């Protein structure tokens, strides 16, 4: 995929389809140290397999962008891969704290981490502005809160009514990585169930990778599906079960027990590190 309209050599980089790569090759090619990376998926379809591959390849110094850091970013932060975190809700949903996230912010472990936080509405609109290639979005929000003094938000006046609205800057990640149920041979991707902000994240990013549960002959249209044409993606990689312990609607189920267990696993630095060594670093990406 190329940014067609921003370039004089419009056709020279053209690919009609997304390439089907092995997950490790895709991550090696698309994600570089220091990149801003958005691994999205709102509770549903969180791209754990791709995130784990980032860790196995030792990516460092990343700006991690995600509305809900969830267990995946807790793991990336705890392993020291993050320079900066951009987010709107850093909890273990229904369970409590993200201990590695907290430890990084409260005690600089394993190293200090920079943060930029927003409300969900702010983050969602930042992605939407990025997907539209607009520099900012307006919303009613932030007014009267202490967030104003601690994040990147400005205010604009409506040129028609004079009402003052919040303005948030577009998100334009270097790479977006999302997980979906299926792709066809041309790299056209289909996901269904809770769609979150994945479409926006992919369209806002400079490069994109989609991991999928399976490759199918032909995408069978599904109710509630989001379809991403292969020509807006860079690569598709097969990663069966790649959203676990999150889930892929219709294929896997959310492992709520693991979300609860994570509270204990992640509470202690050593136990966390040992767990990651055994369950992530010691594995290889599924073929």
């Amino acid at each position, binding site marked *: 995929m190329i940014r067609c309209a921003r370039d004089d050599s419009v056709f020279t980089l053209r690919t009609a389809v997304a390439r089907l790569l092995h997950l490790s090759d895709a991550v090696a090619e698309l994600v570089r140290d220091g990149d801003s990376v958005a691994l999205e998926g709102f509770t549903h379809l969180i791209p754990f397999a791709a995130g784990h591959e980032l860790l196995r390849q030792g990516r460092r110094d990343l700006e991690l962008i995600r509305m809900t850091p969830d267990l995946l970013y807790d793991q990336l932060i705890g392993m020291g891969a993050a320079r900066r975190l951009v987010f709107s809700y850093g909890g273990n949903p229904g369970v409590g704290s993200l201990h590695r996230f907290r430890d990084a912010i*409260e005690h600089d472990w394993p190293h200090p981490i920079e943060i930029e936080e927003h409300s969900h509405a702010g983050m969602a609109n930042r992605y939407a502005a990025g997907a539209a290639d607009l520099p900012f979005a307006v919303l009613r929000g932030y007014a009267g809160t202490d967030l104003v003094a601690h994040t990147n938000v400005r205010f604009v006046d409506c040129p028609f009514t004079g009402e003052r609205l919040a303005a948030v800057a577009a998100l334009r990640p270097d790479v977006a990585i999302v997980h979906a149920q299926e792709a066809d041979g041309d790299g056209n991707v289909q996901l269904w169930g809770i769609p979150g902000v994945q479409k926006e994240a992919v369209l806002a990013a400079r490069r994109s990778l989609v991991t999928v549960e399976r490759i199918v002959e032909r995408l069978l249209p599904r109710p509630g599906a989001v379809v991403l044409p292969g020509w807006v993606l860079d690569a598709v990689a097969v990663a069966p079960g790649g959203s676990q312990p999150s889930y892929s609607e219709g294929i896997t189920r959310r492992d709520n027990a693991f979300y609860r267990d994570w509270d204990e696993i992640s509470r202690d630095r050593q136990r966390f590190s040992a767990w990651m060594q055994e369950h992530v670093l010691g594995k290889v990406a599924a073929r």
Partner: protein
Amino acid sequence: MSVAASTDEVQTVVAARRLASARTVFIGVGRPSIAAILARMVHNPDLVLIYESGTIGAKPFHIPLSIGDGELSETADTVVGVPEMFNYWIGAGRVDVGFLGAAQVDRYANLNSTVIGDYDHPRTRLPGAGGAPEIASSCGEVIVTVAHSRRTLVERLDFLTTVGHGDGPGARGRLGLRGRGPTAVITDLGVLEPDPSSAELTLTQLHPGVTVEQAREQTGWELAVAERPRITERPSDAELNALRELLAR
């Protein structure tokens, strides 16, 4: 018959009753979700449950652990993306009641869910804003449920994440916020409601067996008390049985 209701059960039942005549409610996980499902079971079978994951009209049979559990999307009337949820549904003021929790609440029902201590060097880093600020600024009204303690009901927030009634009467209007803001803070001891003229949270209702003194003692500011606080009607057998059945599913 059934064992007497625990304080936890009373708090949930009281929250559910507040949804008896609502059309739509926006909820997160935990007690708000339990209360909303209970309200659908007992008081208001047509209540429309909206979760920030984009599920509109979800009809969960089980209590969801996350706002994105599969049961929510599978039973919803429609599922929308997160930008649409916040722009077309919450921001546009289409939701009657928003349910929120918080780590700290002040006397004007402003909420902190960001940090305890200094922002740059927090004693405790909390999850952050999530959907709360816009839920509180856009829903028809907001109901807050928290534990009643000096740690939670504080004289001064460490961080103002979500505006309730700001610095008092008229503040919401000055900030351009829609909706009535918090109309009740439901605790395990009773219910605090903003005074119509001062906007200050006032103890208007006590759960059975709780005294005004207990409530005062557990509040971090000098708590205003209504002339004659109501006593919470005990959970009925129907309410309690439904709640226990739900929790056992």
